[in-house]
């Protein structure tokens, strides 16, 4: 486990050193979203009785930043290592692929948790909402970070340059995030978009996390939990296989 700890420490230190970008940035972004959207849409119905739009938005903004940052932690670390060439030191080190993937994943989850607390501090001024169940919130936070961190590992491994990561973020990641009900109740979507949103795993992460805050969900969370657990295992298993086989990193 010494190798795992060393790699985990390196990955955590990496995002803490650039805290302005990795912690203050998400806090500021969430603050501005809440400031503007919370005010402009203050009269919009959330579809949940007694829950104002500002309150509805708080958990959405937190989990959005968690997902974005856990994805960025793994994908940017790997692509930078590949770009700088120092990934050879990782590949030469005597650590199993499973431990390497686990260290990257745990670091992504740690970043997700740190960002969640930072963003909460940034947006808690707009609503008096406190988690209805801290454990449920943490469960969906961790599983969301694990899915996005694992996805970041896959994208970091298969991408050969920063453009490809940016492409993934623009054409896959952003649509999935905006379709996931962060800013709106998905039940207010047109039927076509609503049905499409049900396939979006991020919807279940957002709804699960929001349930942990407000104690109300607009979709079936039992199915969502099983779906997310399955995806977390599948995505990280794929990441492990890609790393073990050395796809685009060993020649």
């Amino acid at each position, binding site marked *: 486990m010494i190798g795992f700890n060393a*790699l985990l*420490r390196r990955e955590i*230190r990496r995002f803490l050193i650039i805290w302005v970008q990795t912690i203050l940035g998400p806090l500021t972004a969430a603050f501005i979203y809440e400031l503007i959207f919370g005010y402009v849409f203050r009269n919009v119905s959330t579809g949940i009785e007694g829950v104002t739009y500002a309150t509805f938005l708080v958990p959405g903004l937190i989990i959005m930043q968690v997902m974005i940052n856990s994805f960025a932690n793994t994908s940017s670390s790997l692509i930078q290592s590949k770009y*700088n060439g120092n*990934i050879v*030191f*990782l590949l030469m080190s005597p650590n199993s692929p499973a431990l390497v993937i686990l260290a990257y994943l745990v670091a992504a989850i740690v970043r997700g948790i740190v960002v969640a607390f930072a963003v909460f501090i940034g947006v808690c001024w707009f609503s008096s909402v406190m988690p209805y169940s801290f454990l449920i919130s943490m469960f969906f936070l961790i599983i969301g970070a694990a899915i996005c961190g694992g996805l970041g590992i896959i994208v970091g491994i298969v991408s050969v340059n920063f453009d490809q990561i940016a492409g993934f973020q623009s054409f896959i990641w952003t649509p999935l995030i905006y379709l996931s009900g962060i800013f709106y109740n998905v039940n207010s979507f047109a039927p076509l978009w609503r049905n499409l949103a049900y396939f979006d795993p991020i919807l279940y992460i957002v709804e699960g996390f929001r349930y942990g805050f407000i104690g109300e969900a607009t979709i079936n969370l039992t199915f969502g939990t099983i779906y997310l657990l399955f995806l977390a295992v599948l995505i990280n298993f794929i990441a492990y296989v890609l790393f073990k086989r*050395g796809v685009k990193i060993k020649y």
Partner: protein
Amino acid sequence: MSYALEIENVSKKYKDFVALDNINFKIEQGDFVGLLGVNGAGKTSLIFSIAGINKFSGKIRVMGYDVVKDEIKAKLSMGIVPQEVAIDSFLTVHQTLKIQSGLYHVQNNEKWIDEILERLSLTDKKNTNTRALSGGMKRRLMVAQALVHKPPLIILDEPTAGVDVEIRKNFWEFITDLNHQGHTILLTTHYLEEVDKLCQKIIVLNKGKAGKQQTKHEFMNQSFSFDKTLQVTLVNATVPNELKQKVLNQQQNTYILELASDDDIINILNLFRQQNIKIENIEINHKSLEDIFMQHLGR
């Protein structure tokens, strides 16, 4: 006692290009071996195969451990300095070495880290961010990274490129000490005088094929031809076409010419006189390692 490194029938292809073609050799523990080859000869492909970065066919064992089947033990037994400078730019020198130690399952090695930094002339940079290091310092830091776990086999892929002369001297004293303590060293470098001075044995890689492992004495005394060379510096002229095949090395107007016998010296000088080529300087030398290496490659 197992060999420090065993390479058996190792081949490596990049699509249609054969980088390594059925390489075989063994390095005994405690040896200091020079792996020679021009750019593209396959040295780095071989080193990356040993390191577990390249996929290859054949067998490679480090200290008796198969690098594929006993990957972890094999990797713990070696420290590699890659050719390309590649450092994690988020960390200080000390943090880099602590994390590298952890990656090699080593803890509480502060004393050894301090000694490495001292011997590699990096002590005053201990708490400096790696981004602020010069190219030569980064290369020495990579050497330090390879040594944190005191590996029995140390593989150095051009470790002194860009390192200045005085620090290079300290560096080689350190590596020689490690060799005297029993560490096996495999070195590739373009500075053949370093190989001449340090290595006990030599292996030549040429177009993906490995020559026979020889002691330096055997390598220097192989009978390609007469063991003397003629060095001439010409005044505003190039060597005549008849002598072009004899050129072992050229730097501006200075040529090192291969000799077949003592009589050859007279023949060559006559040819210069017949063609009115003026000579500024002339020396007769014994062949250097570089001359023999170039001959070995057929150049």
